[in-house]
């Protein structure tokens, strides 16, 4: 057992990106300490908690919660952890536990399209990345191999190598929707880290239809697996360790981290290199908390960029009943989508978007709907059967442009450890609103092609969050407008790196985790390369 007070590298946050980076560093022989604010919990316990949950539509319900490492909570009632300051509530969902938030996703692992990296040069909006698609291509592939990603070769992201995973067979729903929406709409397989054969010691999907919130058999890749692999690779893990301060030396190098254990005892850990991987809200919070005389605005925040440019994919949805039985609930939850609105000259005018078609079972939601309409007896059952067989639920992911005013700051409430809660200011601009108009038109066209009835659009002017949180630690070439450089290194602190979706300067047109994973592997390689030359 290595010295618990010191290591070569300290990584803060045992989510998928922190775990991947830690694993890669540990395999080169470095001593790596991975600190996680939350607890560990096994998959089987989570399965039990899911099945006996009274809030099955809240994907967070099975996961452990502690006021000592709080995260936003919405059931049994909202805990108000995030202070909402802006015109739109940014209802983030994340899990502080060993494995992080991707325990409860649908393993969507997309590459950006090349133009996503150059939206400013091409379309005059938003920002250019400091790197190109080509810089990331190899790392995209490495991440895809780790996660066992399969998908459609026509997704718009060029590939040097074929997907490592064969496609997951399409459900009847996917087949029918695809056939009937063609040629106006092209429905393609999602890029997902879901096994269609045994891979990485994990079986193929067998249709538990429970990807969100939890796969009972780990047929899909998730952060829990990454974190376990980190530990198996020799990374030393300390859970229930809430880092509250980064300590620097007189030159501005990070010297140590301080954390509370869950008995509120403080510990200090020194290291050569520090990596923040605590998600795009908690990492800025940590940086902002780490004030000192030399850095009165917090670490890495000399130019007031930490926490700014907060982005998500604002989403609107629609549900309707198709005119034939398609039976959502058979097979994986998020199998397919429409990607033809992701890129094009229109991006100069309005937000691009991806349209996700859900295959999650609709039984529970149509039951509630039908009960609320007052049905009972045989008619209740007829209605449930009718709607459960036909209900199509569609939502999108609109690309939001980075706006400095959208930001994470420290709130004025304190949690149980005396640490400030995050405060969020979030607005949705005209670029997105114009995109929603296009989306609604597409939704109506889709519903029409499917003979849809009982069409219900989500509330106009309201957006839900997709939990693709980016921007708050933006990479960039210019320190005046970014927090980290092209490698994820803090501009002002040579031995401080950041990984996770927070370093992504734009939110793109697809789910963000694969890009974050690729960046984390790239950052890990940079750290390794530098330590070889040191």
């Amino acid at each position, binding site marked *: 057992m290595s010295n618990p007070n010191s290591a070569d590298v300290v990584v803060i946050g045992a989510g998928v990106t922190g775990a991947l980076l830690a694993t890669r560093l540990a395999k080169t022989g470095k001593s790596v300490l991975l600190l996680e604010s939350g607890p560990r919990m096994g998959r*089987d316990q989570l399965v*039990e908690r899911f*099945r006996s949950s009274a809030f099955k539509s809240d994907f967070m319900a099975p996961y452990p919660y502690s006021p000592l490492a709080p995260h936003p909570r919405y059931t049994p009632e909202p805990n108000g952890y995030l202070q909402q300051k802006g015109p739109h509530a940014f209802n983030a969902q994340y899990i502080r536990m060993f494995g992080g938030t991707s325990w409860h996703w649908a393993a969507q692992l997309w590459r950006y399209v090349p133009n996503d990296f150059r939206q400013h040069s091409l379309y005059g909006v938003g920002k250019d990345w400091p790197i190109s698609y080509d810089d990331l291509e190899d790392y995209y592939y490495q991440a895809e191999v780790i996660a066992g990603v399969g998908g459609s070769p026509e997704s718009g992201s060029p590939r040097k190598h074929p997907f490592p995973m064969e496609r997951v067979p399409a459900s009847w729903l996917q087949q029918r929707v695809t056939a009937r929406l063609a040629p106006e709409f092209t429905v393609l397989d999602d890029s997902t880290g879901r096994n269609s054969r*045994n891979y990485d*010691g*994990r079986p*193929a999907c*067998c249709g538990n239809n429970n990807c969100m919130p939890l796969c009972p*058999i780990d047929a899909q890749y998730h952060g829990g697996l990454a974190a376990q692999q980190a530990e198996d690779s020799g990374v030393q893990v300390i859970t229930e360790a809430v880092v509250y301060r980064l300590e620097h030396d007189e030159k501005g190098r990070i010297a140590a981290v301080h954390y509370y254990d869950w008995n509120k005892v403080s510990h200090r850990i020194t290291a050569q290199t520090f990596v923040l991987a605590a998600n795009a809200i908690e990492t800025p919070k940590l940086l902002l908390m780490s004030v000192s005389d030399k850095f009165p605005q917090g670490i890495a925040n000399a130019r007031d960029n930490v926490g700014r440019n907060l982005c998500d994919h604002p989403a609107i949805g629609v549900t309707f009943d198709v005119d034939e039985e398609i039976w959502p609930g058979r097979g994986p939850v998020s199998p397919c989508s429409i990607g033809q609105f992701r890129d094009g000259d229109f991006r100069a005018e309005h937000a691009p978007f991806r349209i996700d078609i859900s295959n999650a079972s609709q039984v529970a939601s149509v039951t509630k709907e039908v009960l609320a309409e007052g049905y009972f007896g045989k008619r209740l059952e007829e209605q449930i059967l009718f709607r459960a067989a036909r209900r199509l639920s569609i939502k999108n992911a609109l690309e939001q442009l980075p706006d400095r005013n959208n930001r994470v700051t420290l709130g004025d409430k304190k949690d149980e450890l005396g640490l400030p809660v995050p405060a969020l200011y979030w607005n949705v601009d005209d670029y997105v609103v114009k995109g929603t108009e296009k989306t609604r038109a597409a939704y109506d066209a889709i519903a029409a092609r499917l003979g849809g009835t009982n069409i219900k659009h989500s509330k106009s002017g309201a957006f839900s969050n997709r939990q693709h949180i980016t921007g708050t630690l933006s990479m960039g070439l210019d320190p005046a407008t970014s927090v980290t450089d092209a490698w994820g290194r803090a501009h002002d602190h040579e031995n401080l790196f950041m990984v996770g979706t927070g370093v992504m300067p734009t939110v793109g047109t697809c789910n963000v985790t694969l890009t974050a994973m690729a960046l984390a592997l790239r950052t890990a390689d940079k750290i390794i390369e530098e330590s070889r030359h040191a």
Partner: protein
Amino acid sequence: MRKPFKRLLALLSLLGAVALAHAADDAQLIKRGEYLAVAGDCAACHSEKGRAPFSGGHPISSPLGTIYSTNITPSKTHGIGQYTPEQFAAALRRGVRADGSNLYPAMPYTAYARLNDEDVAALYAYFMQGVQPVDQAPPATALPFPFNIRMSMKAWNWLFLDTKPFEPDPAQSAQWNRGAYLVQGLAHCSTCHTPRNVLMAEQLERRLQGASLGTWYAPDISPAALQAKPAWTRAMLADYLASGHAANGATAGGPMLEAIEKSFSRMTREDLDAMATYLLPASPAAAAPASATAPAAAVPALTPVQGDDTPQALAAMSVGARVYMNNCASCHNTGGQGLNGLPSLQQHPLLRQPNADNVAMAILEGVLPEHGQGMIGFAHTLNDGEIAAVTNYLMQDLGGSKVSISAERVKALRAGGEPSPLLWVARGGMVLLVLVLLGVALWWRRRSKSGTAG
């Protein structure tokens, strides 16, 4: 002890067979050799993932240490490219390398000793001409003293190797004899399924009656066991060898699954039926036609998922039942009855075994075939106590067995099995021998001294 005459005869016979073989169509011979290599499952040991086929390097853990398989490609520098047919036969059937040193019986030459000359010739043709030469050395095997002295194998062979080739039984059918030849020879079933004595030799009087491999347990496949109710039929046996599944609910895992995937599933149905015929003596039940293992229903109905999952019932669950519900039920259903084509556990033959090792091993390692639906392993998810609890739940609550497993045994299985006493027996034995010799030497000296005195 072989008389030179016998050896000469054997050599002539082999050369004759080889000569005949050359006269026949070479390509056909190579193809036949390829099939025989599949039947003998040479690739299971001599091919390793990430290395060229048959170039060796596959680690075989034995109680004595790790044995690495050798390069049997026709490479002249690193493989058997220089082997004459006689040397090839000697390696295959007597465990003797071309340089005269002995192979460890990890190479099942004790079974391959049954091979007839024609088959040896075909295998020779395949390995010399049908396999790509690979000029790469695998890692060397280095067993601890005294087992690194391969000459010790000569003593072992003298004690335990039966070199008689297979002789067909004229009282039995051709199919039976073919099955016997395969089971005793190429398929080398008894190397796993027969228990071994303290010197790791098969106990011939208990042939095929089941043996532990350290972790997985090779079940009793003697006729008595196969006929015990609920009996296997020949069709079930052949189906099992072909696919790893049978109508009686059997599913293959561990080393048998590997053998099925690499060997049995790629053999002809005739050969599988022959082996089943040999293993199961004739009886009306044994000859029952294959009950449809997969009823070709138009749209099979979904298996109901039922059971009391109220909070009261959940809280009343035993540890084993609870572990089962949270880890196993999603595929095997709440009562182990199987779910929509995923295997039933209720009548599973594993639950009737004399120990629960295979159940625990399947839980630890999972069952992950090359093709087809797999099962995840729970080594990371469950601790020893939980695995013991759920194993006992399966054996006893579901299977009605009296067999149980302890957390200590699960711990040992995780670690790869109990350490074998063989090394210490051998070393202890040698120390004892040295002490005895020393004692004798001292006594002799004393005798001589006292003899000269006085």
